[in-house]
């Protein structure tokens, strides 16, 4: 992956009713922030606030200044609807855990 001059990546913003997948090519060395800015998703979805919302690559949260590898899927996440504390209480009552992995 390292050493590729052109990075072929995808930027994804997934909503229940429309999942937006933007395929793009970037010069090697491009940052997460650059990819998201070039995707056009920020203009289309003003509710995305990069300073606040988390972003990641294949489920692993990354920082806006991080680099990208060829083949990465850059994902812009949305917050949970449910209050996690409340969810944990309900799960405990049912004898289940949120667990790890």
């Amino acid at each position, binding site marked *: 992956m390292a050493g590729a001059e052109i990075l072929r990546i995808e930027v994804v913003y997934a909503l229940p009713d*429309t*999942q937006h997948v933007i395929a793009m090519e970037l010069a090697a060395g491009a940052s997460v922030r650059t990819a998201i800015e070039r995707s056009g998703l920020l203009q289309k979805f003003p509710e995305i606030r990069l300073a606040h919302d988390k972003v990641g690559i294949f489920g692993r949260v990354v920082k806006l200044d991080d680099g990208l590898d060829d083949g990465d899927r850059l994902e812009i996440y949305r917050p949970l609807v449910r209050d996690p504390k409340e969810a944990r209480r309900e799960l405990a009552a049912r004898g289940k855990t949120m667990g790890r992995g």
Partner: protein
Amino acid sequence: MTVLADRIDALLPQTQCRRCGYPDCRKYAEAIATGATDINRCPPGGQETLQALAKLTGRTAAAGIDPGLGGFTPGHVAVIIEPLCIGCTKCIQACPVDAIVGAAKQMHTVIEALCTGCELCIPPCPVDCIRMQPARGTTEGMVVPVSGNKQADFFRAHYRARSARLAREQTERHARLRRKEFAAGAREEVIARRKAEIAAAVARVRAKRAQQPSKPGGGSR
């Protein structure tokens, strides 16, 4: 054998659902090719796949799909009930084709076009927030075949891409661990060498003293 397995794999729907009892469609194809298993163990493929497999292998399709493997509704995809999702990532780990977007404590969402309908995400969910429902064409920005061989190729490509990524991540994890062990080993080596040097010095001094029992300046000439 491999060529036959390739041709069998090309007939399978690539849902990667494991209903057949094998870890993926490819492994099932290989098992059919060697004669280790029957051709009627693919519920997603249904009658169509069964007939094609019978034609290719010369075996009989008379028994029909094994009813013990559960039904399968083509065209159904997983959907997450958002008010219930706790962001646990278990479904993401279970998905064989990276069809679910999300991270720890973030909302998880199924990219409909990528979902093979395998249902492997459903059992791991601790809050039962995943349902199967007919696909609605909600994915934008991807050119996606909706059925047939082209769709199977699309699913296979995504399954392989995920498998390759997981293998790469594991190799990187192992390399990191080895580097760490090497660093720890090197540190231990240095400590051991210094201890040996000190012990050798102490031994030299003792040997010297043994040769000259009287303390310097304390003896008579």
